Each structure stands twice: as structure tokens, then as C-alpha cells.
């Protein structure tokens, strides 16, 4: 959409749906022996990323014969991390890619951002999986209101001043989860705007770039000081 249509999209999105809640993540975990045993029973060799505590699995080719269906075991393990989350089917991002990706949904919203997904790379020599699905605490923090749509629109306008006629914007409302290299405390409803140049060029001459504008969608004064959202703007 064009930038001038973003305000209307925001107003429509905010008026059409109930306020999605905010969730707290559990503290990053380390491995426990019982958990290791349950993995080994499935033939998976797991580890936890030392920054975020999210799960990583690596299987080398000599171990392929140890288990029959590694992909469904990995999905099952992801489900155990956050049982209240829906895991979408594994899909290849494009033809011939070595990767398989399964995105997730929380409260009927997609989980967006680098995290919130299972990423599997399968080659002849190994299988590696990043299960960037953080465990949520029970319960939820209600959102008090939407962030003022006009304020979000103005922040976009000021960031792309001078480019208004040159860009297209793709807008999504979802829960934003960071990569496995971060400790994250809150899972918040978030607006993700992907900005690309309108002129995509030709096959021989292209100068397409892509950037984002990421802002929280709702607020609750109790949680505001705990997340540094400004860094994404």
C-alpha cells in the first residue's frame, strides 16, 4: 500500500478486533537431565542457546538411522516448549532450498520477526534445527489500549520523508519474537511495516531494497519500561 493509506489501515485494524493481550516469557532455561533423557529417547541431540535458552538440535548423517521421523519429533518438541501456540506446517521457503520453516500463531495472530518459528536445514551431512519458540508464562497481561494510530503513522512519515512517492508498504499485525541471540521478556502485539521501493526495475536493472519499521501495537503502563522498542525505529 502507499504510505498515505497506512493511517486508514491502522484505524481499520484497531477498530475491527479485540485488544490482543501481552504475554511474559519464562526466564531462559538451561538443560535438565530429565529433559535430556526425553530428547535422547527421540534420538535427538539437543542443546539450549546460551543467550536465549531456545532449543537447538543437530544430527549428523551417521545418526540419521537412529530415528524414523526427525521432523515430527522436532515439531513435537517445539509444541512442548509452548503448548498454547499453534505451529503451522513445515514449508520450504522456495524450490530447491535446503531449509524448512514452520511459523507459529498466538491468539490467532501470526508470530512475526526473526523468532517464533522452527528453522530446519537438512543436507546430506547433517540436520540442524533452531526451535526459536520461547516458553510463555501462564496467564496474560491485558493491553489497556492500542497505541495511537496517528502517532504510528506520523513516525512512519517522519522516517521516510522525501520517499513518500517512491515506496510501498506491507503492514502486518502480529506478535514479535526476536532471534535466538536475545533474551526476550515480553511477547507483544506489534505492527511490522516492510518498506520497499515502488519501482522494482527490470530483470536487467534492479535496485530493490528492503527495510522495516517495527512498533508495539498496544500498551499497558505496567510493562512499558521493560522493553526497549525504540531501537527498532
Amino acid at each position, binding site marked *: 500500500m502507499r504510505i498515505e493509506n497506512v493511517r486508514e489501515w491502522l484505524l481499520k485494524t484497531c477498530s475491527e478486533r479485540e485488544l490482543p493481550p501481552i504475554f511474559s516469557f519464562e526466564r531462559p532455561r538451561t538443560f535438565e*537431565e530429565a529433559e535430556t533423557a526425553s530428547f535422547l529417547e527421540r534420538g535427538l541431540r539437543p542443546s539450549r542457546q546460551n543467550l536465549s535458552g531456545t532449543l537447538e538440535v543437530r544430527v*549428523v548423517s551417521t545418526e540419521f538411522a537412529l530415528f524414523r521421523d526427525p521432523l515430527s519429533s522436532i515439531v513435537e518438541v517445539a509444541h512442548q516448549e509452548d503448548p498454547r501456540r499453534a505451529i503451522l506446517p513445515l514449508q520450504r521457503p522456495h524450490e530447491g532450498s535446503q531449509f524448512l520453516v514452520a511459523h507459529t500463531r498466538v491468539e490467532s495472530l501470526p508470530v512475526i520477526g526473526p523468532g517464533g518459528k522452527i528453522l530446519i536445514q537438512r543436507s546430506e551431512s547433517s540436520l540442524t534445527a533452531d526451535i526459536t519458540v520461547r516458553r510463555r508464562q501462564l496467564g496474560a497481561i491485558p493491553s489497556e489500549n492500542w497505541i495511537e494510530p496517528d502517532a504510528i503513522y506520523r513516525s512512519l512519515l517522519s522516517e521516510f520523508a522525501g520517499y513518500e512517492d517512491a515506496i510501498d508498504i506491507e503492514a502486518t499485525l502480529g506478535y514479535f519474537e526476536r532471534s535466538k541471540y536475545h533474551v526476550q521478556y515480553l511477547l507483544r502485539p506489534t505492527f511490522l511495516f516492510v518498506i520497499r521501493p515502488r519501482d522494482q526495475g527490470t530483470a536487467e536493472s534492479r535496485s530493490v531494497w528492503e527495510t522495516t519499521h*517495527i512498533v508495539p501495537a498496544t500498551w499497558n503502563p505496567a510493562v512499558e519500561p521493560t522493553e526497549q522498542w525504540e531501537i527498532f525505529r
Partner: protein
Amino acid sequence: MSLNPDEEAYLRLLRELGLSHMYLSPHDLKRLALAPQPQNPFHALSPANIESERRFSYCKGFDQLLSRKQIRWEHLRKPIIALAEMASVAEILREEAADKTEPLPELSKIAIAYSGYFQRRFSKSFFPPALECARRAPALFAGRLLKENAPLAAISADEWLTMPPSIFTAIQDIAIFYVCTHGRIQQSQYQAALHDRYWQPSPADFGANGPKVLVLDTCHGADRTPPFRNFWGTALQGTSVRLLLACEGPIVIDTPSTERGYAFADNIVQENTSIADAWLRAVRSTSSTGTSRPVAIGLGDTAAEATTMLSLTFHDLRSAAKRPSPLSPRVPVQFADRH
């Protein structure tokens, strides 16, 4: 004195822990031999640096053997002491071997460059927006690798990044050159945006002693279609570059996604991880939009050589014996890709 099967199994596990993996020191083994009765070494001692899954499987193995009560401890004491003596010798030999095969830091030098601010006047029809995050990916990459004793040999940015030739004269014999800026395709030729001009790579930029791995953290850095292959085939023929890491189409540049610099470095220092896979995983695991399509392209004088480059590891680059040689200037470049 013959040992029963359980005693032999106990010794075999101990040998693996102490001699093969070095989780138990010779001193630990001697202490174990002095114990009054059969012991699970995981209860009696604290094996160092053992991964949780391995600890679990060994511990379970010892527990099972001890629960059957077939182990005659007086029969095992002498073999355990002999094992401790063998472990002492093995420790000395390993230290000597490690000194001789230690990767050479001078072969793992890296160089980084980025451009985040562009002069409007250098292109009337298209002026690329500022990339405030362009510094993040190369800086995070270098920061992570500095911890691995991989020295940063050259850095250049913004108006100081005039390419060619200044940075290339400084980056001779570099393992990895990482550049982040805007990229475009102009008449099927790749060009990277610098502060006030576009840079189109050519063989003269790299030479035979330049970087082995070229990371183009830019849009349109690589493509698997014939026109683009022709371009890179010409631009890199006879040069040092044996692995090209880039993205097909746009690569998202924002705060979360530029963590790929850190992720890439963190991946390549993992055991048995190829540099190609490290890049592919880094981009896919940090992209905030999920639309970036990373690609790794191996280059060689033959198709087999090009394929081998997709398995190149950071350890290979640091080893004088395994470091790939430059491409021949007389043979057309062959490609192999993974994406």
C-alpha cells in the same frame, strides 16, 4: 586374572571417558582406583566440560553396570591405575600435537567495510536511503570473531570507503571480507553503493592474494541466473575469492536482521560447520521479514572444486595446508551453489 563382561564394559566406558574424550584426568582415575568399592565416576568425581547428553548416557551406563553387582573391584584397581598412566602419556602427546596443529591466527584475518550514508547528487533517478544499520552486521561479525583470535586487519566506512583501491591494498591475504551497503543490478552487472558512487567488482580489485571468502551483505549480491553468473565469472576469474556469500534479491537491513553478522560469526566457529551453511543459517535465523533468500556460491577451476568450497570451514582457512589456492586466470570459473 580374567575380567568378566561387566568389568570389561566398565573399563571400556572409563577408557572412553579418560583416554578418548579426556573428561577424566589421570589424577581422577587414580583417585577412583583408591575407592573402597565400585564407584560410578559421575558420583565420585566431577568430570569436566562434559555435555549434558553425553553425561547422561555415560552415567546411566555406569549405573546399569553397578546395579548388576557383578563387578569385583579388586580385579579392576590395577587396570584403572594402568589406564591412569596411559592417560598421563596421552595428555603429554596431545599437548605436543596441539602446539603443532594450532590454527594460525595470521591466516584468519578479516576485513570489514560498510556504507550507511550516501550523497544524493550521485544518482538523479534513484538515491538510496541512508542505512543506519549498515554498520551493525560487519561490526557484530568482527566482534564475535575477535574472541576467536581472528584479527581485524582492515575496516573502512562511509566517505572513507573508496573502493577500489584503498581497502584492497590493505586486505592482502585476508580470510574473509565482509561488506554491507546497498546493492543493485545495472544491465546485469552487480554494483555496490558507496558514499558517492557505485563500485562494480573486477579481477583487479581482488588479485590472487585477496580474500578467500567474499560476503556481500547487500541486496542483489548474487543470483543463480546465467547473466549474473557470467558477471561473477568474469569479475572473479584468477582472483583469490573461492566462496561468495550473498542474497538473491533484496536482503532486509534493519536492527533485528543485521544480527546476521553476529550469527554468521557464531556459526562458523562451531565445530564441523561449513562457512556456506553458517551464512545461510545466519540470514534465515535473523531476518525480521523472512523474505531474504541467502545463497552460497562456491567457485573453482572445475565443478568438483567449486562444490568442495561449499564445505570449506573456518578451520580450513586457518590451516596453511587446507587453505584454497586462487582461481586460475586461464580457466573459466565453475560454480556450485547452496541456498
